[in-house]
């Protein structure tokens, strides 16, 4: 879509889509798809699962479009909420199965040297491994707060809990992550001093 479309709100795009505008679907996919996919990747830890969650969440968005009431809520908040619930459902179904951490890809970054990229990749793998050790709700709260940079009230709306509960989840999650990564400081290139 054109630069003018950038100024159109998600709300308005969803209404346009419901009225039959296919370009609105493309713009919404470009805006919201990567965000949902990124969160699902971090929460699920498996690329194929994250793709399924993203596609399903977006499908529900398309189906819900005619009933959407502009101004009542943010489309992104609604979508995050659907995606988080889908993640929980899938985790519940897969409980007992193993998590394939190797399936998480290392994003390419042509601006850095191979050694730096390897170290960054190792650090991101370590972060993902530490995230996967967190309880489900803690992981969701940490991802939404520190990777998506959403506000605590918005996360509270997504997770259907109080703002205080979000603060508690993210604080405990961060402490657990720091503890999990503390033993790997040297391996990840964090030198003392």
């Amino acid at each position, binding site marked *: 879509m054109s630069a003018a479309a950038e100024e159109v709100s998600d709300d308005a795009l969803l209404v346009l889509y419901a009225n039959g505008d296919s370009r609105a679907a493309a713009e919404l996919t470009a805006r919201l798809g990567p965000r949902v996919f990124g969160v699902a990747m971090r929460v699920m830890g498996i690329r194929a699962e994250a793709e399924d969650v993203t596609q399903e969440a977006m499908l529900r968005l*398309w189906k819900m479009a005619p009933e959407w009431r502009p101004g009542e809520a943010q489309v992104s908040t609604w979508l995050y909420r659907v995606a988080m619930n889908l993640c929980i459902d899938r985790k519940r179904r897969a409980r007992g199965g193993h998590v394939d951490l190797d399936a998480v890809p290392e994003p390419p970054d042509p601006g850095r040297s191979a050694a730096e990229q390897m170290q960054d990749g190792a650090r991101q793998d370590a972060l993902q491994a530490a995230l996967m050790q967190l309880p489900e709700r803690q992981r969701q709260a940490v991802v939404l707060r520190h990777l998506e940079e959403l506000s605590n009230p918005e996360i509270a709306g997504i997770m259907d809990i109080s703002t205080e509960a979000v603060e508690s989840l993210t604080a405990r999650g961060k402490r657990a992550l720091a503890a999990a990564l503390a033993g790997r400081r040297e391996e990840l290139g964090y030198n003392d001093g």
Partner: protein
Amino acid sequence: MADTDKANQELEELFAAARRDRPALPEHLSAAILADAGRVQQGRHAAGPARAARQPLWRQLIEAVGGWPAMGGLAAASAAGLWIGLAPPSFVPDPVALAGYEDSGNAVPYDSYDMAMVLSEDLQ
């Protein structure tokens, strides 16, 4: 305390790197999402008129009146009207009297004595 600060700082750096390297939406996934969007959109627009055309006449009439609640009110009003017509309550005035007709006074006494006299006079 210093260790905690350092650990937090390193964690913040990791978060910042993760935000920078956010994964892009794979092309095949983007295509699948858009295909879903098109399918849902087409289905919705195709289903709309088709559903309307399939509606039977009685349902269209009910909807024109205002749906089942309105039909209930209409039926109750009709029943009450019929009942009042067949057996009007005592406090309801006689509609014939209200229309200004009387059953006495100017009525023609075709079977009265006067009429018999007229006829007998004609025969004579």
